């Protein structure tokens, strides 16, 4: 019973470390943690018997006893922060190393008025009542077990608050460095992003792995975007070949507000990002997009559920994946239009490019519509590089490897175009460029001319 032992291992760990977890002084937190571990014990790890976990199997990792990190690990730790920004870029930055804040690499000094950037532990100290209301919110759905485990074990994470009307120009970057040790470690960050009315911020989250050992991150992020607020949320996932990356994101979107997400996954033995977005106010828009580039036996799963609860809301989704070798991609995208959500406009597109005969893609687009005046479109395709296009480029003298690279860049373009911040789009292109197997000119090299 492998499955049992994993669950038990986490339950045992919890009793061992609970006294060392932050917020022990908070009378509401201990029951929350206890409830979390009890619920996790009941549910166990998600299995492929669950509908939304059908294509992503966690079991192969069950025999690894991921241990919680009890202190900051400096083994193999890189000196630089692995930012996606150039060294001299002017950004606010929080850096976590296996879940622990690395103050030396962070920069959250001189924050502008209206912006608060803290770790979870700092927020527990400075604003416990406010935090209680946010953390005690229920998470349902088939990944409830992961959220419950996170609730029990959450040791750190970031808390970002943007006050009413504050428009923050500089991006906030949060870097999670994983691995760094050969021991199998786990961390369970809990993140919270709250934008008050009319505020704006750009958040860049960068998960990057080091070292050779397996590690697990089980992240839960709660996002609240009040009326008229705008959040641009970009994520780079560049974990190691031994990493298990699980991320559950819940977003509440108010009236006339915007949630823009782009996830770029370029590494990780097994990764799953599950986004659940709720459009709760008229005029709200969410744009959830991503690209995943996988090779070896990597597995990448994007599962999204967008719910339109009220009239006049819109959503769009563009996901593009490139799968080489034995890698596997999963896209499950559900758009739910509730009964009152008239005049919803929803668009969803998933395309995957298989570079190898052994790569596999599972795409499951779903529309659930209960209103009658609705525009919704979805499409999913999986294919190979177009042979005629490849010949066209090669017939101009471009070697096959470079020709393939150009076509891959071309393929991904449609997803990257969704990133409204041009500078960040270009930085994401840098990472894609690093992934590509051969050198070639960047497709976007000349566009700024």
């Amino acid at each position, binding site marked *: 019973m492998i499955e049992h032992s994993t669950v038990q291992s986490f339950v045992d760990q919890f009793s061992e470390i609970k006294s060392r977890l932050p917020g022990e002084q908070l009378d509401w937190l201990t029951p929350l943690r206890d409830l979390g571990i009890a619920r996790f014990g009941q549910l166990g790890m998600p299995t492929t018997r669950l509908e939304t976990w059908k294509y992503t199997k966690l079991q192969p990792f069950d025999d690894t006893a991921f241990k919680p990190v009890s202190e900051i690990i400096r083994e193999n730790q890189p000196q630089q922060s692995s930012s996606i920004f150039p060294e001299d870029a002017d950004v606010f930055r929080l850096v976590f190393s296996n879940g622990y804040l690395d103050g030396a690499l962070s920069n959250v000094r001189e924050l502008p008025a209206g912006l608060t950037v803290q770790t979870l532990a700092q927020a527990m100290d400075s604003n416990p009542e406010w935090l209680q209301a946010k953390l005690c919110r229920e998470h349902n759905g088939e990944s409830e077990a992961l959220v419950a485990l996170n609730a029990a074990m959450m040791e750190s994470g970031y808390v970002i608050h943007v006050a009413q009307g504050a428009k923050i120009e500089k991006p906030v970057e949060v870097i999670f460095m994983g691995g760094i040790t050969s021991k199998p470690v786990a961390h369970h960050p809990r993140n919270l992003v709250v934008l008050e009315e009319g505020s704006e911020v750009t958040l860049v989250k960068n998960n990057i792995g080091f070292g050779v050992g397996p590690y697990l991150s089980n992240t839960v992020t709660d996002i609240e975007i009040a009326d008229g607020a705008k959040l641009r949320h970009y994520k780079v996932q560049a974990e190691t070949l031994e990493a298990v990356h699980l991320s559950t994101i819940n977003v509440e979107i108010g009236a006339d507000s915007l949630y823009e997400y782009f996830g770029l996954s370029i590494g990780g033995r097994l990764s799953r990002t599950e986004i659940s977005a709720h459009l709760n106010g008229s005029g709200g828009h969410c744009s959830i997009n991503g690209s995943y580039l996988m090779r070896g036996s990597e597995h990448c799963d994007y599962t999204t559920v967008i719910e339109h609860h009220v009239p006049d809301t819109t959503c769009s989704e563009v996901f593009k994946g490139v799968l080489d070798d034995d890698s596997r991609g999963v896209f499950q995208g559900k758009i739910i239009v509730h009964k009152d959500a008239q005049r919803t406009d929803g668009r969803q597109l998933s395309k995957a490019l298989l570079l190898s005969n052994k790569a596999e893609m599972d795409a499951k687009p779903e529309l659930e519509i209960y209103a009658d005046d609705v525009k919704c479109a979805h499409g999913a395709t999986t294919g190979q590089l*177009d*042979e*005629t*296009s490849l*010949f*066209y*480029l*090669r*017939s*101009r*003298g*471009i*070697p*096959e490897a*470079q*020709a393939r690279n*150009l*076509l891959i*860049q*071309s*393929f*991904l*373009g*449609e997803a990257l175009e969704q990133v409204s911040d041009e500078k960040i789009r270009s930085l994401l292109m840098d990472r894609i460029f690093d992934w590509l197997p051969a050198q*070639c*000119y*960047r*497709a*976007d*090299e*000349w*566009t700024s*001319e």
Partner: protein
Amino acid sequence: MLEIKNLHASIGGKEILRGINLTVNAGEIHAIMGPNGSGKSTLSYIIAGRDGYDVTEGEILLDGKDLTALAPEDRAAEGVFLGFQYPVEIPGVPNTTFLKEALNSIRRHNGEDELDAMQFVKMVRQKTKELGISDDMLKRAVNVGFSGGEKKRNEILQMAVLNPRLAILDETDSGLDIDALKIVAEGVNKLRSPDRATLVITHYQRLLDHIVPDHVHVLAHGKIRRSGGKELAMELEAKGYAEFDEAAA
């Protein structure tokens, strides 16, 4: 310059070319005409090295070097250029990136220094000026949203930049109205060079009013059935390809 000797080729076991012999000297333009399905496009693809065709016999020599075993990119580096009947659209890849990658790949292959961004832009702008092509076309993604005429002009621009020894123009007239055809033909004529051999593949004579060939060949059922001067094209226009029916062949 180009010598095709007894070229036999098949697709999936079906013989398409049944012993082509053709010599095109530097400075000459040869037209290959023929009915649909005669193997004209196959011949152009096989010279350029497209996958999926088996050359079962014969040779394709460019300046004495056999191309048949080379990859398409290596043939391009040796000086082969194929202007496509249906140029491919490549969203997100600007024309300049494409042209620079192509030109520098060929230069690398031939042991020449790559052009840097400045040198390249200067060179390309000179070519667009000579051909009367708007620089706007350089910034746009390769062939995306181009009209039929623009796509063909883009082929001519690529040819001007890559400066091939052998240019093959496959059904360049297809999909063009007469004005676009004139513009494209004018581009081809501007690129006429004593150092270049050109092969124009076409079903119709009308293109040859504008690109005047030195020799005309009729390809039917995988073989060259007749060769002659430009008057042969006129004759075909009047009489059609009936005499080259399987029975006649």
